[in-house]
């Protein structure tokens, strides 16, 4: 998880998109506490967007 956070930090710095940081942080923290099954529930027509 730390390497992921580091990657995100470098990414946000490169792209100057610091405003995305709070949202990303919240989601990654959520990802750290909850174990997700990675079965896809998204309908195929949404794939181009997500």
């Amino acid at each position, binding site marked *: 998880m730390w390497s*992921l956070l580091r990657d995100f930090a470098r*990414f946000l710095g490169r792209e100057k998109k610091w405003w995305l940081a709070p949202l*990303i942080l919240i989601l990654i923290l959520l990802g750290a506490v909850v174990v997700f*099954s990675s079965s896809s*529930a998204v309908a195929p*027509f949404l794939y*181009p967007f997500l």
Partner: protein
Amino acid sequence: MRYVLGLSGLYHDSAAALLGDGRILAAVQEERLSRRKNDARFPERAIRSCLEQAGITAGDLHAVAFYEKPILKFSRTLEVFLGWAPRGGRAFARAIPDWLGGRLDLRGRIRAALPGLRAECPILFTTHHEAHAASAFLPSPFTEAAILTVDGVGEWATTAIARGSGAGIEPVEEIRFPHSLGLLYSAFTAYCGFRVNSGEYKLMGLAPYGEPTWVGAIRDELVSFDEDGSFRLNLEYLDPLADDRLTNARFHARFGGPPRRPEEPLEPRHRDLARSIQVVTEEAMLRLARRAHERTGSFRLCLAGGVALNCVANGRILREGPFREVWIQPAAGDAGAALGAALAAWHGSLERGGLSAPRTPASTDAMAGGFLGPEESPEAVEASLRSLGAVWERMTPEVLRERVVRSLAEGKVVGWVQGRMEFGPRALGHRSILGDPRNPDMQSRMNLKVKFRESFRPFAPAVLAERSTEFFGLGGESPYMLLVAPVAESQRVPVAQEADGLDRLKQVRSTLPAVTHVDGSARVQTVDRDRNPEFHALLRQFEAVTGCPVLINTSFNVRGEPVVATAEDAYRCFINSRIDVLAVGPCFLERDRQPHASLPRSFEALAD
């Protein structure tokens, strides 16, 4: 030897590809092995198959390359949700678990899937369009070329132009989400009642039956073109958050009614819409091709990305575009991006983290005919036929060919499974169903009774490369069945009076009625001895017996099924369809002699 593994997937069409010292050793789509069409799961089976084919383990790998930048794509997803807010809450809650559950931390996921991978083996990431561009240029026979990649969307880019030279690829410019030709085509696919990401072929096959009556409406309101070849979609007509379509009420009002449900009949309006969006797509592709030529100055073009599977558009680029030569990656969709990612890592510079290998283009191309999948030994074939209780005769290749050709000439439908499996959506004569193209009933018989699919869908001809010009106005080779060309004038039969709509299907238009589409075109595969010797020999034999060097070649599967991989898949499909004869490896099987009337299927059927 230094090995590089390339991976794609997690959205649709997962795949793996393996390079050994830069040579493509193996490439496999997950769906063929998992028996779930367009399988999007992590390509574990495909990875295993690639490693087995090369006889290595994960510990032998020097690099693993994934075809996308997950963090970039995740941030785009978040930005899209920010743009949609306050709508999109439910879609957000459904989409995010996939990301947190394994799409984001791909390094961890890849290491978990490849136990034994050395700690110092780097896991690399190309962008989506870099992987497509690499898959288009690096295996091509060209030393320099313009590269055009067009698909739904990668990270941000939906369309990209690059310049390839030697082993290097330099990106030039791109069009970004949401302006996307792939998305537009998919919107019409969904609107006409077909499945997004797999029903696009059906829409393309339906197009010649309709009239381009909606072209004006699409151009006026849905998509606008700039003089420089770029385009923009009008988002007021598209709404992916609407219940189960990409399109919204405004779109439905403008294009003549609510979306068609899959089980509803096809109306003339749907045929006209299919034709119209096809015409707009072809024009857009031609504009993009001209732009690629202007920006790079090259007279050679390499194509990839899902939209490059639109073989009608490809044929027009070759005939009407500014390029002298065009090479299209046979696995142009996301499966081919696994190969592209591996090649990009192999040839990528050291500063970027690549292995910086030089490149010498092959004289034809580096795809080995597209035959990059697994193959079963004759013993393995016999063992699985035995376990299924099949009745077969084992014979030499010469006798097998003779028996198969005799069956074909008698009007029988033959399942033909030989050699290594194809990589990419087309069956090229190693996992094919074959038939006699001179037979006027063959198209509807094979569609309805063999493949259980819509009667309007066309079949493709495989022709001896040395005789292709007698039958098709191709102006070059088409070994991967990615170009549509007109049937030669000398083979045409005049039609007294054009029938209406789908009735046109039954009219004979050429000496090869089963492979001639209603507009007098055909999606041609040219078969040469070097790349495809077994299939070439079969065509030669058929020519010797009948005088005709052409066969119908369609993929060995039924509706909703991935193309067969093994003798077992082939036998199950053979029993459950109306294929008359099966030739798998050295074994010859006739339907009448089999003890089964049906067998449980070995795939997860996919709805339309």
